[in-house]
């Protein structure tokens, strides 16, 4: 008897969870659709976009630059050590560092850092606005949270993340050069020729195009988690954590598929 009750309860829980997930997916899709519709229908709040660009960009720049600088250093160190082990001298350090940074590490690491930094801030801010009825106030004052809050943040992300990533590309390659020159004794001219002899514009574009996908993922997830917050201060905390975890996981998962698509169309 107890067993059948237990099974029913598990099925019920599973069903409830499946319903909640599908409802969330539906509401997320509606948010994306609504954002596209508002962009076409109403003038964009450029002052808000600029504010968000400053907040997301300027505040994230030091931490993304530092992160990729050290990643470049580690890459050079590892490549130099491996190369020495196999060939008795550090070969193609500039090539490995630049390809790894530009095509993969700079876009992904910048996206991860920005989702932890700016994505969390967005979810917390919008979540607080939701639980203090500021979102409802927007409706009563003739506007819509999608127009006033979501669109500026999505656009700011789309404009700022590519710039942060390009800075991260240079910072990572520079970090690699510091180790290559100081620790491995590779002349600057060799390091630079290792990069430019092999790298083409399509390699740069491979990483650069990814940033637009990552910017969309992080901004929409953070805004969605923020404006669907319920349950006071505890709810804001939960939304913020969920926004960061979901953004980071989505960036890493979708990165694979974007890489596969870009490779299939020859941008690699």
């Amino acid at each position: 008897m107890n067993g059948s009750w237990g099974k029913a309860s598990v099925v019920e829980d599973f069903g409830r969870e499946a319903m909640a997930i599908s409802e969330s997916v539906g509401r997320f899709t509606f948010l994306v659709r609504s954002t596209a519709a508002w962009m076409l229908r109403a003038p964009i709040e450029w002052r808000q976009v600029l504010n968000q660009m400053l907040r997301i960009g300027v505040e994230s720049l030091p931490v993304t630059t530092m992160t990729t600088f050290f990643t470049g250093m580690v890459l050079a160190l590892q490549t130099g050590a491996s190369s020495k082990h196999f060939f008795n001298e550090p070969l193609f350090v500039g090539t490995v560092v630049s390809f790894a940074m530009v095509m993969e590490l700079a876009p992904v690491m910048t996206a991860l850092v920005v989702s932890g930094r700016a994505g969390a801030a967005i979810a917390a801010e919008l979540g607080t606005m939701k639980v203090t009825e500021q979102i409802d106030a927007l409706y009563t004052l003739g506007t819509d949270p999608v127009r006033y809050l979501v669109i500026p943040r999505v656009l700011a992300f789309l404009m700022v993340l590519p710039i942060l990533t390009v800075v991260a590309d240079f910072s990572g390659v520079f970090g690699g050069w510091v180790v290559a020159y100081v620790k491995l004794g590779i002349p600057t001219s060799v390091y630079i020729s290792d990069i430019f002899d092999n790298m083409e514009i399509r390699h740069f574009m491979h990483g650069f195009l990814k940033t637009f996908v990552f910017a969309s993922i992080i901004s929409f997830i953070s805004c969605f988690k923020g404006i669907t917050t319920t349950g006071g201060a505890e709810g804001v905390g939960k939304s913020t954590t969920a926004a960061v975890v979901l953004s980071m996981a989505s960036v890493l998962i979708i990165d694979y598929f974007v890489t596969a698509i870009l490779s299939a169309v020859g941008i690699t």
Partner: protein
Amino acid sequence: MIEATGVKKAYPGRPVLRGVDLMAQDGETLAIIGGSGCGKSTFLKCVIGLVRPDEGCIKVDGTDITQLTREADIAKYRRRFGYLFQEAALFDSLSVWENVTFGLRYLTNIPASRYRAIAKDKLALVGLKDVEDMRPSELSGGMKKRVALARAIAAEPTYILYDEPTTGLDPIMSDVINDLILDLQKVLKTTAIVVTHDMKSAYKVASRIAMIHEGRVLASASPETIKTTNDPYVRQFVDGLSHGPIKMKLKDFEPETVAAGVGKAGAR
């Protein structure tokens, strides 16, 4: 005129409104009283279209909000309302004058160059001076309510909806807010619905009082009639008595041993 007929609303597992019939005539101030969680704030949000009723209709000057589906139609419908939120719901990131004039951009064609002067006028109407450049975080609870009131009346609405206007304020400030509501009524000649559980406030500002209990309208009469009514439910509420036909649990949970002990004592 606001006319609600058979309004029903339920949240998952919890019916809130079970068929509310209410009418607010032009120029009158209708106070809706009732215990916490009885559905009065939900009703107010149904009137302005922030919450969609499951059943029933709410007609404002002949337009039924429950039948509107296009966002543009709902926004047009909301234009005739000013809404004072329970916790003021001021935008933290904007200054006081930007808060007051926020809705003008979306609700009117007034040029932006006049916003600051309008903010000053509206703030003067609610008894505030030289606070235009302050941030909401620098204001006291009473000042926040006044700024929110100035924001609600900035676009000169036909109807003003007050959600618990005196909650969280000291008795003197509560009376000041009541006086402001009366003054605005005289100056602006608006129709108002005031949701409150503060009987002093209801008696002072209302031309008619309606009591909601368990999602239905229990009584609707002039303040004088309500003061002298013999209806045991209304009597218990307006006199603020814990004993009577309205059952309030002292605790949601009582340990079984305590309950058993009480039972034994009763049997003896």
